[in-house]
């Protein structure tokens, strides 16, 4: 796959001055964040730091009270709805794995597969050979070829996480937002997930929210620490993890 569209500015995603408040509580407070194309960024921070709210703002679930959220230098995401934003090429994996439980593994991927999303286009739809090949290759990547016909609801927690990552791949987004991908995974699975994300990052921009510091370290990318809705520190994992304030509010002494 190649990204063909010319970028008008360098940043893949640009957030500036973003504020969101819920009943007076400032979930995001003048947040600024810039992610370059092809970058992988890890976001850390204590509970209530605004990590998930930031994801909600980027994907159109929450409208910010103030600020700019610009995708690829041209599209202002604050005016668009979830479906439009998803179709621009922003994929999201949720904290709690949300797959379609009553669909088979394969159908979950078919639904996620990049294709025409309009209602009428899907009435006369049947799988094309390239689409089935793509499904095969994703099943292989997430190691679920043998479980393809199982209902997603009957999968283990770790398998659901992987299926959701597979759905993200099928969507072929330009930017992936991944919320706590290794929650509830074993050490071996955590390691594999880190490898998989690095693999994905070769072609796509990735933002990962994660609490597991071992995992963040394994990714070896630039880290942003959020606190009370704004950026507390940014830099390499070594810089951030030795920052006095980060230790104070998040890592603990």
């Amino acid at each position, binding site marked *: 796959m190649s990204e063909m569209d010319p970028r008008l500015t360098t940043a893949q995603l640009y957030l500036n001055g973003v504020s969101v408040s819920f009943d007076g509580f400032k979930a995001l407070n003048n947040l600024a964040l810039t992610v370059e194309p092809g970058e992988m960024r890890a976001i850390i921070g204590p509970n209530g730091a605004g990590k998930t709210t930031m994801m909600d703002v980027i994907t159109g679930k929450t409208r910010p009270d103030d600020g700019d959220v610009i995708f690829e230098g041209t599209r202002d995401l604050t005016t668009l*709805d979830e479906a439009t934003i*998803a179709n621009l090429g922003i994929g999201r994996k949720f904290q709690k794995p949300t797959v*379609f439980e009553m669909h088979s593994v394969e*159908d979950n991927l078919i*639904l996620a597969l990049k294709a025409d999303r309009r209602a009428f286009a899907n009435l006369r739809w049947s799988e094309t050979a390239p689409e089935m090949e793509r499904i095969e290759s994703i099943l292989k990547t997430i190691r679920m070829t043998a479980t393809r016909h199982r209902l997603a609801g009957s999968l283990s927690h770790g398998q659901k996480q992987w299926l959701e990552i597979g759905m993200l791949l099928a969507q072929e987004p330009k930017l992936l937002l991944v919320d706590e991908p290794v929650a509830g995974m074993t050490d071996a699975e955590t390691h594999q997930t880190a490898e998989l994300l690095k693999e994905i990052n070769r072609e796509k921009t990735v933002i990962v929210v994660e609490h597991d510091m071992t995992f963040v370290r394994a990714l070896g990318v630039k880290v942003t620490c959020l606190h009370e809705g704004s950026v507390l520190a940014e830099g390499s994992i070594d810089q951030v993890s030795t920052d006095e304030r980060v230790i104070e509010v998040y890592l603990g002494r």
Partner: protein
Amino acid sequence: MARRNAPIIRTLDKGAMAFLFLVAVAAIAIPAANLLLPPSSPFHVPTYLVALFGKYVCYALLALSIDLIWGYCGILSLGHGAFFALGGYAMGMYLMRQIGTRGVYADPILPDFMVFLNWKELPVFWYGFQHFPYAMLMVLLAPGALAFVFGWFAFRSRVTGVYLSIITQAMTFALMLGFFRNNFGFGGNNGLTDFKDILGFNVQAQSTRNALFIASCIALALCFIVCRALVTSKFGKVLVAIRDAESRTRFLGYRVESYKLFVWTLSACMAGIAGALYVPQVGIINPSEFAPGNSIEAVIWVAVGGRGTLTGAVLGAILVNYAKTTFTSGFLAEYWLFLLGGLFIAVTLFLPRGIVGTASHWWRERRDRDDAVAGDAAARPAE
């Protein structure tokens, strides 16, 4: 190990073919038993039963339309009786205009109730109903247009769950109050009745009754095929995705409201067809068809048969209505509503998937268990 079939085979799988076969058998056997066998034969079906079965088939079609939106898209409509009644009124208006000078007041244009109310002219919305094709178009358009407008506002505003159910109840209740009024122009609380003929044939005649029964079976079969085609397409997979995780579906880029609006409007049209076939068979349409209780009853049929199965909706409608006919004609008549309520509670508690749903779930579980044994060994990542 691809287990993929052509769309036509997916649409008409074994279960669907078996269902269509049964509908075909009923459509042939019941009229044959009525028309060909002498009344002395033990297999003779009297004409009143043909009309009764025809009524059941119309209810089955209404249940099918509810299952399409509730079972597959999670939209619980407690007002589908409104679309059924609107289709029925469109047919009733056609039948009224066929009466012509045979009415009590023998007015060539105005139906009796209008003469009685001292109206001088036919209201504009009654124009054209003397033509059968126009009336049939209205059978689809009247419920379809109401559903489209209602759905457009409700789904765009993301009204879901119990809130949506409540406003559908309000919709049918409001329509009932409207149709009860004489000046609304649909015959007030008497509704439309005393029909004479349909397409030139006497509605009371034995042959017409059989023809209407067969037409109802054909309508049920065709709508069933449409529903099957829909739910086995990718569109259908999206519907189930919306039912189970609506916001997740949005984040995949699907515009949920367009999917809902399409299936909701289609469902309303099907309910309208059911109502249109119902009216000539029962011989009357009046505002009580809009009663909220009717819509709730239809939902119970679907719950009993099993939502999200299509065939279950049909089975449930026929079983519950057969029970209703049996009970309300005996000494238990006054307890019927208690029985119906009890049935709904029992199904919700002990058989949440309904009859067909429980059977097919059991079947699927068994197959999955076999698959899982074979699959898990291979699926375990190398560690």
